[in-house]
């Protein structure tokens, strides 16, 4: 599967199909949809940001339409970071994720609210 090969390229030590985990950092205004958690670990086998996000939203469905538009694209003023890299300037939701990735959901323009 090409997706798995992509993981291999990013994290050569990983074996194909290995379960992996990424951690999402949830901003304050969305924590009411994660039972108050500011940090959510998602485990599974996924190769792209879109798949990781999809796994996150399967557990916390309230997040989906607050992060993504009706067409499944990232909302205009929301940025997703893998580490310090904003996926908007990489391959968007097709950006590969790797085991242990730290993914931050960050409002691009802050509304003055904090969690």
């Amino acid at each position, binding site marked *: 599967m090409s997706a798995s090969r992509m993981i291999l390229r990013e994290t050569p030590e990983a074996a194909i199909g290995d379960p992996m985990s990424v951690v999402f950092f949830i901003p304050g*205004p*969305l*924590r*009411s*949809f994660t*039972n*108050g958690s*500011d940090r959510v670990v998602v485990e599974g086998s996924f190769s792209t940001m879109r798949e990781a996000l999809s796994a996150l939203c399967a*557990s*916390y*469905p*309230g997040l*989906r*339409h*607050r*992060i993504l*538009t*009706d*067409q*499944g*694209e990232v*909302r205009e*003023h*929301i940025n997703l970071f893998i580490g310090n890299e904003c996926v908007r300037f990489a391959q968007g939701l097709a950006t590969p994720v790797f085991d242990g990735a730290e993914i931050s959901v960050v*409002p*691009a*323009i802050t*509304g*003055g*609210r*904090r*969690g």
Partner: protein
Amino acid sequence: MIGKTLGRYTITAEIGRGGMGVVYRARDPLLNREIAIKVLSESPLAGTISRDHLLHEARAASALNHPNICIIHEVGEQNGSFFIVMEFVEGKPFSEIIAPAGMSTETLTRYGVQIADALAHAHDRGIVHRDLKSSNVALTAEGRVKILDFGLARVTEKNDVNSITQSIGSGSSGLTGTLAYMSPEQFRGEPTDHRVDIWAFGVMLYEAAAGNVPFHGPTPFALSAAVLNDPPPPLPKSIPAGLTAIIQRCLAKDPALRYQRASELRAALEAIQSAAIVAPETSGGQSPRPTVLRSLHHIRVKPREALLLVGTTKGAFLLRSSPSRSHWEVGGPYFHGDAVYAITFDGRDGRHRLWASTQSVLWGTVLRSSDDFGKTWRTPEEAPIRFPVGSGLSLKNIWQITLGPDDRPDTPYCGTDPAALFESHDAGESWSLVRGLFDHPHRPRWVPGNGGLILHTILLDPSNSSRMYAGISAGGVYRTDDAGKTWQARNKGIRVTFSPEKYPEFGQCVHKFVFHPARPERLFLQNHWGVYRSDNVGDTWEDIAHGLPSDFGFPVLLHPHDPDCVYVVPVESDEFRCTPEGQLRVYRSRNAGRTWEPLSSGLPQRNAYETVLRDGITADSFDPAGIYFGTRSGRLYGSRDAGKKWELIVEGLPPIACVKAAFYGLSDGQQRSSVCSRPRQPGRRKKPGSARKARRKSR
């Protein structure tokens, strides 16, 4: 002890054991309930306090009756054992629910307010806990805090200075746990009062925020030195500054510098909750979550009161008044920072529900509802109003909420940006796109106006359940006569200024149109240039703008009781969308648009460059009718005599997008929004014909 009786209580199990004695679960056969009994292992008379005094103190504590204090039912003695009978609390100690990194501000303030409220209750009755700590506070499964052992410290523990010193010497671990919460004055052996509880509560708040108590030491002496001399270590930066300040003030070494009353502390914690949206933690992830907005100003609406619902670009406000409508109380703001372009009151079927669309720049648009006048709002977990995948469209905003007729109380409609009509038949739980309009061959050629490509007007003909209108900017007027299956453009006679063809079939930039429920075949319309009337359900339109200073404007409104009486608020032009010549004037026609008169009494007539948006004007159902409008500068005006005289109701609101009048609770128990098919006169009633006479007189 198990199986034995103490007083009338049968001991059933041992719950806990400590230095001061054993706690049992027991059954009260008389009242048939579970209780807890604390049996003291040794005589509490080691100190200087007399037995009578201890009994007196415990009995005083048993007088406390507060939902967040574990109730003491009885104190007694049997065979030399001193025992305390109390409420059986099932829950976890607060100390166990504090995560290593602390708890969220929302959770902390939610519990903190309950503890502060309990402290205020007890202190007001002269009762001090003296041993408040996180292991002495329980959290029930329902999320309720219960403070244990209130007023029993001197009965159950020997925490005067001499005994502390002895205990430290003997390494008593139980007392060391207590030491971390002990105030400097307790360590110094000074007289103490209720402010020791404020200190201990400060330690608890610190612990809950940071995950650890503020003062530590390898030995009890080192700990006491830290409490007496060291400032608390800095809290993590993630703690809001306001909460940090509260904790620091509780932990002032000098009791005179702390909060002097627990009620002040409670108020300060409530202020921290302001604007914080706190969702109760629920186990099921699928159900819509109620959102509780705390520490806003909530209005308490009583039956037979007038309501104004105001949506602004930065939140919503609710206003209430007695039927006199002379003084308005302002509640809110709700949805801080979200734009509210549609808000409505749903009084069908005995409800009193508010519907509001909230648009966040960041997180998108959702439709929320409240059944308690804004105290709590239902926010759908997943957005039910959304465009089909593959359509290329995503919801930007909800511009209109229109209720179905009284005989379909579970049907609301929403008009959106991008232009589409959605309907629900289960009171807003699920929504579907009205495909007849969405699949209309004209849709690809509709073009957005300044506000977007929006469907902003939805009218249901009360005389024909299959007929409905939709207004689209810029698409024009559309009508269905078969309950939404097919739609026809109905724009004949409405001019377009932005294309070479002046009277196209569709594409008009319609701003708003209305009908009177008593004459639904006649429509009045404010266009992007042009004011029109149709006498034939929209088939043809006639220009009625003659006599107005400008035919550009946004809103149009009908008098609730007079189908010939129509209101508009003209602005100068497309380029300069402000009231002409800096004069704020509402224009009224009482002959269906043949002649117009300015209504300006009480409105600023100099330097008032105002704009009233398409849903910025509304009428109530009183007689004489109240007319209200809100401006882009955040001023809300009202008239109690259908526009003759105006009064400023409130100013300084964010830019007002929509205003809706409503009336809560008619005498027959029904509620009705201002857009009602059968106008009612719950206020003063005039003799029949007097309104007409008065009108003739004023001409």
